C-alpha cells in the first residue's frame, strides 16, 4: 500500500513537471519570439556585382494660408445666420498671367506635389465639425472647390464645378444660381456621394503640379452664436494606376 502511494506521488511529480515544461514552452514562445525580419523602405536587389536601389516617395507642400483658414473679413469678424462667407484668403494671391485682371483666379490656398515625387498622387480631403462647447456647426456647411487645371472635382453626375462660386450656367435656373460646390466629407462619413467627391479633390496630380482651392462657409439660420473651431485634413497618396 505504501509503495502504491509512493508510486502515485512519483507520477504526480512527473505530471507536474511535464505541465511546467509545456507551460514554459508556450510562455517562452509567446513572450520571447523575436522580430527576425527587417526590411527597409527601399527595395534593393543584388545579382553578382550589380546593385539596384529603387527609391519611391511622395510629398506634398501646402501654402501656410491653406492650413490656417478663417471665414469672413477682418480679425474679429462676426458672421450672420443664413449667409455664405468666403474664406479670408479666397481672393488673394495670384496664380495665372491671363487671369490677373479678371480677378477671379486669386487665392492663397494651394497644395503642390513635390518635384521629387516618383508617383502621381491622389488628394483626398476630410474634416471634423466646427465646435464650441456642446454646439456644433456641421462640417458639411463648409464647401470647397479646386481650379479646373489640376483639380478635377466632379459631382456624382460627372459635372465639374471647379472655381465657379456662383455656379456654371444651368438651363433651368439660369447663370450663377446653381452653386453646389463640394461639401467637406466628415471623417468616417459613409455617404457614397461624399466619398466620390472626397476622392476627386485631385486625381493623378503630376510631380511639380499645384492645385488651388477655395473654401466657403454657410452659417445656417438658428445657429447658436460663438467662436466655432474645426479642422480639416488633406491627404496625398500615390495613385493606384
Amino acid at each position: 500500500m505504501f509503495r502504491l502511494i509512493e508510486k502515485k506521488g512519483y507520477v504526480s511529480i512527473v505530471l507536474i513537471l511535464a505541465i511546467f515544461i509545456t507551460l514554459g514552452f508556450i510562455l517562452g514562445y509567446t513572450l520571447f519570439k523575436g522580430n527576425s525580419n527587417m526590411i527597409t523602405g527601399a527595395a534593393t536587389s543584388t545579382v553578382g556585382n550589380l546593385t539596384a536601389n529603387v527609391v519611391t516617395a511622395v510629398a506634398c507642400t501646402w501654402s501656410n494660408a491653406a492650413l490656417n483658414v478663417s471665414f469672413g473679413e477682418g480679425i474679429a469678424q462676426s458672421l450672420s445666420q443664413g449667409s455664405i462667407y468666403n474664406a479670408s484668403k479666397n481672393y488673394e494671391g495670384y496664380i495665372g498671367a491671363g487671369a490677373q485682371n479678371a480677378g477671379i483666379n486669386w487665392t492663397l490656398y494651394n497644395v503642390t506635389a513635390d518635384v521629387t515625387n516618383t508617383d502621381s498622387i491622389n488628394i483626398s480631403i476630410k474634416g471634423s465639425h466646427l465646435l464650441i462647447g456642446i454646439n456644433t456647426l456641421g462640417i458639411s456647411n463648409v464647401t470647397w472647390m479646386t481650379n479646373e487645371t489640376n483639380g478635377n472635382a466632379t459631382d456624382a453626375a460627372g459635372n465639374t464645378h471647379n472655381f465657379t462660386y456662383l455656379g456654371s450656367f444651368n438651363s433651368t435656373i439660369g447663370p450663377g444660381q446653381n452653386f453646389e460646390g463640394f461639401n467637406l466629407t466628415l471623417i468616417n462619413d459613409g455617404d457614397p456621394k461624399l466619398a466620390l467627391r472626397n476622392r476627386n479633390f485631385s486625381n493623378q496630380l503630376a510631380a511639380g503640379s499645384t492645385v488651388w482651392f477655395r473654401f466657403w462657409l454657410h452659417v445656417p439660420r438658428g445657429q447658436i452664436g460663438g467662436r466655432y473651431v474645426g479642422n480639416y485634413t488633406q491627404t496625398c497618396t500615390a495613385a493606384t494606376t
Partner: protein
Amino acid sequence: MVMNKILFIVGMFLVCISLVSASIGVGISPSKVLDQVVSKQEKNYTFTIYNTGDIPVLIKMSASDELEGKVRFYPEELSLLPEPEPHRLPPVNGKDIIVTVKAPVSHDLKKITGHIVATAGAAPGSSFGGSGAVASRFELMIGPPKYFWDYMTDKQILLANLVILLIIIIFIARWIMKKKGIHFALVKEEE
C-alpha cells in the same frame, strides 16, 4: 539711432513676409509597400519622413483602414527641418520611422490594405485649422499560420495558460493534502 529703427522696421517687415509666404510640407518614402507574411508574424518596416516646406514641422504618425490597431510606430512623433532646395532623393534632413506590423490570424491567404500616414500639424489659433498629410499605400498578403499554435489568438493562448495553471494548482493542492492526510468530503448535515 534713426538708422537702427529703420533697420529694425525693415527686418520685422521681412520676417512678416517670410511668415506669410511660409509653406508646410511632408513627404514619405517608400510611397507604397507590398509584402507577404504569415499569420501573427511581426515585421518591421523603415519609412523615411521628410519636410518639403520651408519651416520646421512636427509630424505625427498613424495608420488607417485595415491597418488600424495592427501597427506600432517608433517614434510616434518627430520634428523635422526643411529639406534644402532643390529637393532631391534620398532626403537630406529626413528621419527614419520604424513601423512594426503584426499580421492578424488568417486561416487562408488574405490581403489587408491600409495606409501609413504622416501628418503635419494644424496651425494653432485658426478657426478652421488644416493638416497636411502624406500616406504610403500598404498591402500585406497574410498566409496561413506556420505552426499549429499560431491558429490561436493571444487571448486564446492566455486563456489556455490560465487553464493549465489552474490544473497545476489543483494537482499541487491534491498532492499536499494527500501528504498531510487532509481530505474533503461531502457530508449531509444531520438535523
